[in-house]
């Protein structure tokens, strides 16, 4: 894939901003030039930031009538050649599900930032939750494999805002930044690097835009107007894009390739971070804001002489199965704290091969490190 290094938009060095502003700036730095959205707490600051910044940069912004229109505008912009994104929270994310499947099936690169709040339904609009993890994976009907990232800091909101676009372009897949209210509204220091790596779309207008010889390939993507005589359809299509709505082989090949192109690349997509795992006998597996609490709990437990570590999941989908399996071979017990009633825990159990204990909190508040310390002392 053509990759280039572009100068950062913000002055390199230290900045102080919220996670929501950071994810917008990270996306802009990586070339995001189209935003369409609909306001919703606790993600609205992303849209508000984009409303100011995109026109300033001579790029495009559109406020749409709802989230369905927002994500569809993003799909249209992407096929017209833009690096396009939207941001939302639970109720809006739910409305985007049909189009998320459309994007996966048409292999449309795009970025959705979901700043999770306490669901289900309208739930607690201003409070935190992590209840959309399974929805990000399974929310649209049929089999498909999105990519979902889980940031734990304002810095990572910035970094993942850019990285999400690179993953989306590289694998022609919708990428979801599964942020949480507590990260979106977290004000902290971020370091802006002098430059940002940008993966450009591979354009080969003569090539088949919807199929590859390999069963797990990623086809090059033309844009409208490139001369590719492009047809983009949410119905089953052959490698050239023509509708094949009754051909069993075309359907099977397409559905299988769309899954395989992601699953076969798990090792290059999935990122995890190890904290104090070298000598650990037990380990937290945590993601998002909860991983901050888990890391603090690890430090406190270590101060009490407990050999505990943390495996932080930065990628949630595809699930970093290998890293968890590897951890399961090294520790006696894995501890999974989540701000939901157990969504990642099942994936951990499938991969771990060692006893797994779980901690669920759905009161609209972040999990306190003290709670994790007492729980860990109880179960290890």
């Amino acid at each position: 894939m053509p990759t280039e290094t572009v100068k950062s938009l913000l002055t390199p060095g230290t900045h102080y901003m919220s996670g929501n502003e950071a994810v917008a700036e990270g996306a802009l730095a990586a070339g995001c030039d189209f935003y369409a959205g609909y306001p919703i707490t606790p993600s609205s600051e992303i849209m508000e930031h984009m409303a100011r910044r995109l026109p300033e940069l001579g790029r495009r912004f559109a406020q749409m009538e709802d989230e369905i229109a927002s994500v569809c505008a993003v799909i249209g912009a992407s096929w017209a050649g833009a690096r396009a994104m939207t941001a939302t929270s639970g109720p809006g994310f739910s409305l985007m599900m049909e189009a998320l499947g459309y994007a996966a099936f048409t292999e449309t690169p795009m970025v959705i930032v979901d700043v999770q709040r306490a669901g289900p339904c309208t739930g607690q609009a201003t409070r935190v939750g992590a209840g959309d993890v399974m929805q990000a994976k399974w929310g649209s009907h049929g089999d498909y494999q999105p990519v979902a990232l889980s940031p734990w800091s304002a810095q990572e909101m910035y970094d993942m805002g850019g990285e999400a676009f690179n993953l989306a372009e590289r694998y022609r897949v919708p990428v979801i930044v599964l942020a949480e209210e507590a990260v979106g509204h977290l004000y902290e220091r971020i370091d802006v690097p002098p430059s940002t790596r940008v993966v450009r779309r591979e354009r080969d207008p003569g090539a088949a835009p919807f199929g590859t010889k390999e069963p797990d390939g990623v086809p090059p993507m033309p844009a409208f107007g490139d001369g590719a005589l492009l047809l983009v359809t949410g119905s089953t299509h052959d490698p050239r894009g023509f509708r094949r709505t009754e051909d069993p082989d075309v359907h099977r090949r397409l559905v299988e390739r769309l899954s395989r192109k992601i699953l076969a690349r798990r090792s290059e997509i999935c990122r995890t971070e190890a904290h104090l795992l070298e000598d650990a006998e037990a380990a937290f597996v945590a993601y998002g804001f909860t991983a901050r609490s888990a890391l603090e709990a690890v430090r406190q437990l270590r101060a009490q002489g407990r050999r505990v570590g943390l495996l932080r999941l930065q990628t949630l989908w595809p699930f970093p199965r290998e890293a968890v399996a590897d951890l399961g071979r090294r520790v006696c017990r894995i501890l999974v704290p989540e701000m939901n009633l157990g969504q990642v825990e099942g994936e951990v159990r499938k991969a771990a091969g060692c006893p797994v204990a779980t901690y669920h909190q759905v009161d609209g508040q972040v999990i306190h490190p003290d709670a994790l310390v007492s729980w860990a002392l109880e179960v290890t």
Partner: protein
Amino acid sequence: MKPVFVRPQSLTDKPFHFCPGCHHGVIHRLVAEAIDRFGVRERTIAAASVGCSVFLYDYFDIDVVESPHGRAPAVATGIKRTNPDKFVFIYQGDGDLAAIGTAEIIHAANRGENLTVVFVNNTVYGMTGGQMAPTTLLGQPTTTSPYGREFGQDGYPIKMTEMLAQLEGVGFAARVAVDTPARLAQARKAVFRAFETQLEEKGMGFVEILSSCPTNWGMKPLEAVRRIEREMIPYFPLGVYKERKGSDAL
């Protein structure tokens, strides 16, 4: 002593939480007066929207459903068709009704649902912190139109009453304001007519009420009231846009 001003029976005694100068409270009162006037309190069901009116149940002594954002006309359709003898009103903000819920209001109107609609137009998304609404006036800065609404970028403020008045299923459509005592009296009349439209089974009774939002307009309450006359009424002309008369029932 003869009381000259009393709380309508349909309003609870809970103090309004609305920001100083917000018109939601005044409009709540008008609706409560109408419920009392037609004696329908025991059979009234409200479908509230997601927005500042989400607190409606606190202030009305009636059953309330808080619909998903924009969908009150659809939820109300289910209620009214199941229970045609109930009185069902919808109370929606301009983001709720004129953005995300455009399809639902147009189709409920077009189906001629016997529903009363109170549509509060304050030219912003109030509850979520002052983003642009479909009704935001040209030039008006909001958090998502920081340079002021500009038609090339954001389109024109939408005139829902004029649009809906075109539909056969609408029995009554009017736009009113509550910024002066005289207009308040007109507004009361319009709300009453929108109630009667449902009671007479003449299709949808629709009232758009121009409302202030001092907090998100960045104005003091008095300035905000003045803005209604100075900026809103010239673009959103007041008046009755449709009235189906006596015998020509739907």
